[in-house]
């Protein structure tokens, strides 16, 4: 279960490919593709490992307050599909 108060990182099995819309995500373990649909979400996901918790990464990426719940929901989805994981 995703908890934004815990430390996360991008899974080592995952590669992010920068694209104009954000990034393409490829999981080498599950061979699934998914898409990060804003550049800011790419910043959040790649910044996770540098922050004590997920909240910190969202804040550091400069996500405006009203949008933060949506970003946390996105992170919960990414945790559920294995793109990000607790560290």
């Amino acid at each position, binding site marked *: 279960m995703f908890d934004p108060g815990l430390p996360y990182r991008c899974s080592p099995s995952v*590669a992010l*490919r920068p694209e104009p*819309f954000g990034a393409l995500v490829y999981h*080498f373990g599950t061979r699934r593709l998914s898409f990060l*649909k804003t550049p800011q979400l790419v910043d959040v996901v790649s910044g996770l490992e540098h922050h004590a918790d997920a909240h910190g990464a969202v804040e550091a990426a400069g996500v405006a307050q009203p949008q933060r719940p949506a970003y946390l929901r996105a992170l919960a989805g990414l945790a559920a599909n294995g793109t990000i994981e607790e560290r």
Partner: protein
Amino acid sequence: MKLVDHFQYGLNSPICLTWELTYACNLACVHCLSSSGRRDPRELTTAEAKGVVDELMAMQVFYVNIGGGEPTVRPDFWELLDYSIDHNVGVKFSTNGIKLDGRRAAQLARTDYVDVQISLDGATADVNDHVRGPGSYDTAMRALENLAAAGFGQPKISVVMTRQNVDQLDDFKAIADKFGAQLRITRLRPSGRGADVWDELHPTAAQQRQLYDWLVARGEDVLTGDSFFHLSAYGEALPGLNLCGAGRVVCLIDPVGDVYACPFAIHEQFLAGNVRSPGGFQEVWQHSELFLELRQPQTGGACQSCLHYDSCQGGCMAAKFFTGLPLDGPDPECVRGFGEQALAARDGAVPLPKSEVDHSRSAPRKTRGPVPVTIGIGRPDRACETSPIAGFGASANDSGLFSPAP
């Protein structure tokens, strides 16, 4: 902007790349979309092919769909397979099964990051061999048996839908289930030798409806390479990417290194460049005139006022081109029948576009004559190719910020 709108303007690298390693083939299927048979002496060497893999790795193309011809008849096929996988470029290869004996099946079962797709165009030997040639059904079955015996997890059985096999859909599914395989069905294109048999083999209008209903009932249980998007005009959209990917998210590298907009468009009109040129594949993908043109906004042409344009967007570029229809008009298999009308209205005096690239064993040696028809490049519309992102879309709890690909 929706994700598919972004896709229309092209990506830094393709999502779905088909790479045909050789035009050589032990079979001579009547509908071969690459008119394969004889090896081309200009085929990329092992070193050149490895150079392409290096480039794909640098471009973060995470896997390739390898085909041919019959790719496994290249003596360096297994070497290239290992090289690609070792460089984080996963491989899904299509084969008629000729080389998949017990030893190779065991080798594949030990290899991570490889998918095998066995071609089968009839659930019975008579239907299959009519199209793919004598003995080809048995070859495919033997390969599937060897893979199952070796413990290879979930190969794919790839079927091109024809007038003769639409009624066998349940039988194909039963064969797939028997071998622990996944069924994948794709559309017959009038490309390559397919142009010669399309009139005879393409499903009737009633069969298209039957196929659509079957697919809707099966959901994501059956793969389609997103190739039936033109049927979405019947109502409910089929799972998959709803966009013609040609030159935008999809392309083809052929055995001599030529880069085409899509695997069904081997014709000089859709030739973007060659991987042997300065800048290699990346230069072609990112800067070729053709691909930049394909990424321009489209108008919809004659289809624009149709109620269903949003769901089918005019259908498949290659299907239109090789049946002599304008690229900005209806697909020849338009579910509303506009394609049939357009086919009937063609000027019989104008020859159909034909590719100069023909390696059929029975064909005369390549002749370089004038190209009889030139038709302006319009925009293709939907993902007509073997898209890996079948079924991606908004989930119930979608935040709107990322799209999972189930």
